[in-house]
């Protein structure tokens, strides 16, 4: 690629952009530290995330962990593209959890840049890391977060591309100096710098030693999208071969010499404490090494996991439940109802005349609710730790290796230098393993510290995992509107409960002149956390269900109704139209079947789904098909993006149909999959995903497919039956003919 065909990095990055780019690349003296930490013989770092070996191999060091979303392929694709690397000579590694390899600055800069936010108004997925106590240990700038659908949008766009392009510039400078020619006369291809006029060429491996002496540019010229040869291609994922033969080592698979296993029973009522436990009843069981009393749990350490598990189940611990030990779901619902009915609603945002516009004959009101949800990753939470000579070494899969290391240091009251953390692939993340939600690390660390010298692998059983999650919040939303003479909404009023302040995802894309958003803070003892698509997981359902209600009230076609309201939102409109066209919207739907549509933007990506359902006279629901259209701007790896949308639809569908965590006597009532049913092959609809490429900034992939799923299905159920689902999950509704 000749440099004359390149463009200069976006001129409009501004101050925040400078911050981003400035942090993206190290001063050259920091390469020594990186080489010592993560370079193998023959390799050298040329900048933060790229190593070049003497055989010209390029290794991209990814400052994220693998939770299955394909970023170990997509991010290196972006770096390799700018570096003009031959993909067959590109290797991928995980960055060590060291502050040298933090991705936080990228994430922060990205957020500040794209959202106009301040550090104190971070989205939920970063909030756990940004509290003051945490910052004193790790510092906000020391994140290695994988979440918020941010890997490609932040690390890829602001890190990987710059790293690739900058490294390329340094290699070209080194070659030009060696040949005494202009850099302008040099080109790059397949891990080599070429000088066409003289026919000479040098491999990157031959140049890297010279190249590192040049100052890395934070403002290198980047390729135009039309020049991409790797980005935009459905390159096969690099992690998949090891995932089909059982050789990927997840956290739960760690093996250490002399390792013991631990099983835990955590106080069932959140926030309650262990009062007493008689450990003598299990002391003589085979393999039992120790009964460890933690503040909020009892742990049995044994030589094998099943022995620890059976022993801990045989104990009769007494827990102090406290006042929260009588709380149940109906009381929590009453709190939300009261909060929304009360006078303490706090204004979030008003457009036009706000709620004052709620006048006229055609006022429509509906209250929606979504339940608590568990993440239920396939790999239950676990961590392995050994405390030896005042040092802790810990192995686990988390969505932030550096944050995990800092959390461990804080938990153990050790200097961070005395903590080594090994970040392992995760059997699912979905937000469960983000910083701020590290109960499994705390339990493993405290257990290991009670057994100095012995490596201990602590595994939550499925029951403990389900009952000690940080749940998608239970949220209630009172929606109101008034239709004008043409049946279009004159006002949009959204009053909703919240565990954690106002939700930007509540704000609609629809062009409605008067809008009002207010929040009702509700405090409970149930821990909540980010769950795939976070706020959008509930507001997508509220917004897209209520707008559907308005369309039906106006006796207008739900697609046409949305189109009319999205006249000034071209991305939404194009995505909606693509989904409708591919699904055959408007074609006849037989009796007993229904078709529903929904469109929602989250994490910078617009997704529209059309759901087709069949509802039997006995009320049995089958989701037959979901057709999806996606505008993520440019797709780095189209097949990878499609896979994420497919997965998000199924994740959202499991929640919509069956997902519900309820509270009884202060504790979670569900324990394992029979109580918390998933989608399986038999219940998985046909799914079609269509990509709409646009010039919009690159959007997220992992989460945006979730929010429109529940409303598309609920809207299809309404079309089939006339039953409006306003409370999830759908399983709680009677869809029989008699109920219609």
């Amino acid at each position: 690629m000749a440099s004359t065909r390149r463009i200069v990095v976006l001129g409009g990055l501004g101050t925040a952009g400078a911050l981003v780019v400035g942090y993206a690349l190290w001063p050259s003296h920091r390469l020594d530290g990186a080489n010592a930490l993560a370079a193998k013989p023959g390799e050298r770092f040329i900048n933060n995330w790229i190593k070049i070996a003497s055989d010209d191999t390029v290794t991209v060091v990814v400052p994220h962990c693998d939770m299955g979303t394909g970023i170990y392929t997509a991010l290196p694709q972006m770096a390799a593209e700018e570096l003009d690397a031959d993909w067959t000579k590109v290797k991928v590694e995980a960055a060590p959890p060291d502050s040298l390899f933090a991705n936080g600055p990228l994430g922060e800069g990205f957020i500040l840049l794209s959202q106009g936010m301040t550090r104190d108004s971070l989205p939920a997925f970063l909030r756990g890391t940004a509290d003051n106590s945490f910052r004193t240990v790790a510092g906000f700038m020391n994140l290695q977060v994988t979440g918020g659908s941010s890997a490609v949008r932040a690390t890829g766009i602001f890190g990987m591309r710059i790293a690739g392009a900058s490294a390329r510039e340094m290699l070209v400078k080194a070659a030009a100096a060696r040949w005494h020619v202009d850099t302008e006369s040099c080109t790059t291809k397949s891990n080599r710098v070429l000088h066409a006029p003289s026919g000479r060429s040098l491999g990157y491996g031959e140049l890297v030693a010279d190249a590192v002496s040049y100052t890395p540019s934070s403002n290198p010229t980047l390729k135009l999208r039309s020049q991409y040869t790797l980005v935009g291609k459905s390159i096969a994922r690099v992690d998949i071969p090891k995932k089909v033969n059982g050789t990927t080592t997840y956290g739960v698979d760690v093996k250490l010499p002399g390792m013991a296993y631990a099983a835990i029973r955590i106080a069932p009522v959140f926030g309650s404490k262990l009062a007493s436990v008689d450990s003598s009843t299990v002391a003589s069981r085979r393999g039992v090494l120790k009964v460890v009393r933690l503040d909020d749990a009892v742990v049995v350490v044994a030589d094998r996991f099943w022995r620890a598990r059976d022993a801990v189940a045989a104990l009769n611990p007494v827990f102090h439940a406290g006042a929260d030990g009588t709380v149940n779901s109906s009381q929590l619902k009453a709190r939300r109802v009261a909060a929304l009915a009360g006078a303490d609603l706090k204004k979030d945002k008003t457009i036009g005349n706000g709620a004052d516009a709620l006048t006229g004959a055609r006022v429509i009101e509906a209250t929606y609710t979504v339940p608590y949800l568990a993440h239920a990753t396939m790999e239950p939470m676990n961590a392995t730790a050994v405390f030896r000579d005042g040092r802790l070494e810990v192995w686990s899969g988390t969505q932030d290796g550096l944050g995990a290391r800092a959390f461990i240091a804080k938990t153990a009251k050790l200097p961070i230098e005395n903590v080594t953390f090994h970040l392992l692939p995760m059997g699912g993340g979905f937000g469960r393993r983000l910083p701020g939600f590290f109960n499994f690390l705390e339990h493993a660390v405290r257990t290991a510290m009670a057994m100095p010298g012995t490596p201990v692998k602590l595994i939550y059983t499925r029951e403990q995992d389900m009952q000690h999650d940080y749940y998608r919040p239970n949220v209630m939303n009172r929606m109101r509107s008034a239709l004008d003479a043409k049946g279009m909404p004159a006002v949009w009023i959204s009053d909703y409960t919240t565990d954690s302040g106002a939700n930007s995802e509540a704000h609609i894309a629809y062009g409605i002149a008067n809008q009002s958003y207010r929040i009702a803070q509700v405090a409970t003892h149930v821990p909540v956390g980010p769950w795939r698509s976070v706020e959008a997981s509930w507001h997508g359902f509220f917004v897209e269900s209520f707008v559907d209600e308005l369309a039906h009230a106006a006796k207008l076609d739900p697609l046409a109704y949305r189109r009319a309201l999205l006249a000034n939102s071209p991305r939404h409109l194009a995505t909606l139209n693509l989904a409708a066209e591919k699904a055959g919207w408007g074609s006849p739907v037989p009796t007993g079947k229904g078709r529903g549509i929904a469109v929602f933007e989250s994490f910078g990506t617009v997704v529209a789904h059309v759901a087709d359902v069949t509802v039997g006279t006995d009320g049995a629901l089958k989701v037959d098909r979901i057709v999806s259209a996606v505008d993520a701007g440019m797709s780095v790896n189209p097949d990878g993006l499609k896979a994420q949308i497919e997965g998000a639809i199924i994740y959202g569908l499991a929640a919509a149909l069956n997902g519900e965590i309820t509270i009884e006597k202060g504790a979670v009532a569900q324990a394992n999959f029979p109580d918390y049913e998933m989608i399986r092959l038999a219940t998985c609809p046909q799914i079609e995903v269509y990509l709409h490429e646009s010039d919009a900034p690159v959007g997220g992939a992992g989460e945006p497919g979730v929010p429109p799923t529940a409303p598309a299905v609920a809207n299809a159920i309404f079309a089939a039956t006339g039953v409006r689902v306003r409370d999830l999950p759908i399983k709680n509704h009677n869809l029989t003919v008699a109920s219609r």
Partner: protein
Amino acid sequence: MSVQLKINGKMYDLDVEPDAPLLWVIRDEVGLTGTKFGCGIAQCGACTVHVNGNAQRSCATPVSSVVGADITTIEAIGENGLSPVQQAWIDHQVPQCGYCQSGMIMAVSALLKTNPHPSEDDLAAAVTNICRCGTYPRIRNAVRALANEKV
């Protein structure tokens, strides 16, 4: 107490209780960690292995019940490199996090042995494993391709 198990063609003399779960014996005694723990109650299928060629959920299988049986795990499903099912999983880019895929591959491999051309309903009835990443559409595609190949 000694239990003899034949796993991937190799005999193991194991000092475990007769009711020890096969899953944990495979993982922690034998040291083969490709077979995964998901639920512990034979609901999710992450722990699926072959017992005499049939798919069985090892987390709820006491070792005493499989003495003398041929037990096969994901590590040995591809006798010479990758099995056709494993190759199809790569061709169709099935796995995401990958955690459930050992069990999926074992369940599908067992099905294809007795029913080389399964319909979508056959597949859904035989393979009830859970995948939280939502790889089912790609599993269907991969199995469809395998079924057609063998026609």
